[in-house]
C-alpha cells in the first residue's frame, strides 16, 4: 500500500466521519515501532487524520471485528478492506454475521504485507526505524547501520501467492486496483501431496508438536465465528487446553478446525500470520480448498455474497464418497 493511499484513506475516512456517514472506523494505527501496526477503532476524525496507518505493515484482517462492532456502535461502521479481507467480509455476510446496511467499506489497493518475522530474520539485529520506499524498506538497525531490504524478500507467503488483488466488496475504492500475483497458490500443497504418507506425517508432526494451544489461529479466523467454540466448553469432553504428553488431540484440534471451516475459509492466511510458533496452518485449509476445487469445480469462498458452498449444497453430479473424487 502506497503513501498516497494512506493520505487518501485518512482524508476520506475523516470526511465520512465529519459528514456523519460513519460513526467510527475500523483501521490500523502505529504502535511502538514502525513495523508494529495494530488494529484499532477510531471514533474521531482528528484521530483518523493523525494516526491512521495504511501500509505494508497493516496486515491484520479487520473484517471479523464487524460482528461485535456493528452490534455495539451507533450508526454505520466504516472499515478499510484490503482485497483479501474483502473475501472474509463477503463470507461473513453470506453467513449473516453482520448487517451490510450498517457498514461503509473503503476498498484499499494492496501489493502485499510484510511478514515481520522474516523482516527481523533478514535484518538480523534490533530494528530502530523503517522507511518504506518504492519496492524496498530502508531499515536503520540499533547499531546504527542502514540496510535496504527489497520488499519482495520479506512479503508474507500469503501475499506472494495472493488469490486476487481485486477487492470483491467495497462501497468505494481508494486508489487503483493492483495487478494480481503470478505465483501458484497451490504449489506448496502439491509438494505436500507428493510426499509419502510417512513423510507427510513426519512433516505435520514436526510442525504441530510446537503448538502451544494458545488459540490465536482460531480466535483471529474470520470463519471461526461461533459465539462459543466447542473447545471452550469444559464439559464437552474434548481437551480444551494443552493435553498430557503424547496425546494426539492438539493435532486433531487443527485438523478438526480445518474441516470445520472447509468451504468457508477464504485463505486469508491470518491463522499462520498470528501463530507464535510459525506453524503453516493455512496449508491444511489450502489443501481442502484445492480438493474442493478438483471435486466440485473451482470455488472461492467469499468471492460473492450468498453463494452456496459446494459442501453445503447437493447436485446429482457430486462425486461419490469413497470413490477418490470420481463422479
Amino acid at each position, binding site marked *: 500500500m502506497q503513501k498516497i493511499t494512506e493520505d487518501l484513506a485518512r482524508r476520506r475516512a475523516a470526511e465520512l466521519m465529519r459528514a456523519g456517514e460513519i460513526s467510527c472506523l475500523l483501521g490500523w494505527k502505529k*504502535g*511502538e*515501532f514502525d513495523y*508494529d*501496526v*495494530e*488494529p*484499532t*477503532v477510531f471514533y474521531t476524525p482528528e484521530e483518523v487524520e493523525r494516526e491512521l496507518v495504511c501500509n505494508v505493515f497493516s496486515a*491484520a484482517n479487520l473484517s471479523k*471485528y464487524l460482528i461485535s462492532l456493528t452490534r455495539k456502535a451507533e450508526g454505520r461502521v466504516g472499515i478499510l478492506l484490503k482485497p483479501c479481507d474483502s473475501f472474509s467480509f463477503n463470507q461473513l455476510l453470506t453467513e449473516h454475521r453482520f448487517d451490510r446496511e450498517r457498514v461503509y467499506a473503503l476498498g484499499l489497493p494492496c501489493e502485499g504485507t510484510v511478514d515481520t518475522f522474516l523482516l527481523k530474520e533478514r535484518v538480523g*539485529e*534490533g*530494528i*530502530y526505524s523503517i522507511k518504506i520506499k518504492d519496492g524496498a524498506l530502508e531499515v536503520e538497525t*540499533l*547499531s546504527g547501520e542502514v540496510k535496504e531490504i527489497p520488499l519482495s524478500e520479506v512479503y508474507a507467503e500469503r501475499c506472494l501467492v495472493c488469490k486476487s488483488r481485486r477487492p470483491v466488496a467495497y462501497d468505494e475504492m481508494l486508489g487503483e486496483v493492483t495487478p494480481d500475483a503470478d505465483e501458484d497458490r497451490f504449489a506448496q500443497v502439491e509438494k505436500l501431496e507428493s510426499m509419502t504418507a510417512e513423510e507427510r506425517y513426519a512433516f505435520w508432526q514436526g510442525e504441530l508438536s*510446537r503448538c*502451544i*494451544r*494458545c*488459540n*490465536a489461529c*482460531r*480466535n*483471529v479466523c474470520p470463519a471461526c465465528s461461533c459465539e*462459543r467454540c466447542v473447545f*471452550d*466448553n*469444559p464439559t464437552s469432553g474434548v*481437551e*480444551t*487446553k*494443552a*493435553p*498430557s*504428553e503424547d496425546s494426539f488431540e492438539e493435532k486433531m484440534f487443527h485438523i478438526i478446525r480445518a474441516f470445520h471451516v472447509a468451504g468457508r475459509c477464504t485463505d486469508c492466511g*491470518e491463522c499462520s*500470520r*498470528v501463530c*507464535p*510458533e*510459525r506453524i503453516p496452518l493455512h496449508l491444511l485449509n489450502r489443501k481442502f480448498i484445492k480438493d474442493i476445487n478438483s471435486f466440485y469445480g473451482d470455488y472461492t469462498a467469499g468471492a460473492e455474497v450468498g453463494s452456496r458452498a459446494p459442501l453445503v449444497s447437493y447436485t446429482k453430479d457430486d462425486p461419490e464418497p469413497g470413490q477418490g473424487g470420481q463422479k
Partner: protein
Amino acid sequence: MKRCPLSRLEDLFAALAESYKLYIPTDGEKGSSFTLWSEGAEISRRLNTARPPKDFFFPQSEDLMGFKTHGQTVELVDLRTEKEDFALFGVRACDAESLNILDRVFLSEPGDSYYASRREKGVIFTLACNKPAETCFCTAFGIDPSRPGGDVSCIECGEYLYLEPLTQKGEAALERLSAVTEDCDSAEAEPQREKIAKTVSRLPLADLSTEGFGEGKTDELFSDERWAELSRCCIGCGSCTFVCPTCQCYDIKDFKNGSGVVRYRCWDSCMYSDFTKMSAGQPRTDQTSRFRQRFMHKLVYFPENNDGVFGCVGCGRCVAKCPVSMNIVKVMRTLGGKKDE
C-alpha cells in the same frame, strides 16, 4: 571469576554434558529453542528462544498422579519421573529473573514439590545480552542484561567467555569445568558491560517506567476507563500468556484413558472464558475484565503480595507475538507515567 576461550566453547559444553543433561539454545528455521546438546551443536545467534525456559521447571502439561480401580479400591499411582541433573546454558537475564518470580509462587508454603524438584536439579548458566532487541525492556524492572543472574553468570567479551558463579550450585558446576577454564580478573569483562549499558540506554523502550504501578494502586487502576479502549481489539487468545516467562496460572484436570484416570495439570490463561470458572460461573465475563486481570496481576496484584516485585521481566516476547500488537508496554504507556516526569 573464570574464563574460557570462545574457540573452546564446544569443549566447555562437552565437559558440562559429562555431569548434566545439557540444553543450549539452537537455531531452527522457525525460531530458536533450548535443545539437548550433542557434539557439533551450535549455540543460537538469535537474541532469545521463542519459548522461555519456563517449560523446564513448569511444563505446559505434566502428569501429577494416576488412579486405577480394582473392584472397590482405588490405587493411587505416582507418575513422577525422577529427572536427572540438568544444565541450561544461555539463559538471558530476563528469563533468569522470571524464575525468581516463579519461585515466589511455587516455593512459598505449601511448596510445589513438582516444581521444587526440577529447580533443585537444574543449574542455570546465564548469558549477557550483547545485542538486545528493540522489544527489550528488562531495565524497566531493574534487570541488568549485562549482569544476568542464575547460578553461573556468563558474558562474552573479546575472545573469551567469562563465567562467574553466583550460587553454591554454580560453584560446584564450575569446578567441573576446570579443564576448560582458567582464573581471571573480573575487570576483563567490564568493557563489554559498558558497551551493553550504552546500547541499552538507546533502546526504543528504554524510557518505559513502572511509575504509577505497584503496591496500593488497585483501586485507582482497576476502575480506569481506559481498559476498555486498550482491550478493544484483543481477540482473547492465550499467546501472551503462553509465551510469557512469568505467567504461572494452571488448571488441573482428570483425563480418562483406557487403563484408568490420569490427573494432569496444564497452563491456563486468564484470557480464556473458562478461566477460574466456579460453580457460580465465571468471575470475569467479558474480554475487558480478562485483559485487565492479566496486567493488573503483573503490575499491581503481584507486587502487592510480593514485596513490590513486579510480575514482568521485560523479555518482549508478548510484544513480538501478540496477533493484534497489544501488550504490556502499551498498557504501561497508557496508564502509567514516563521516566523523569
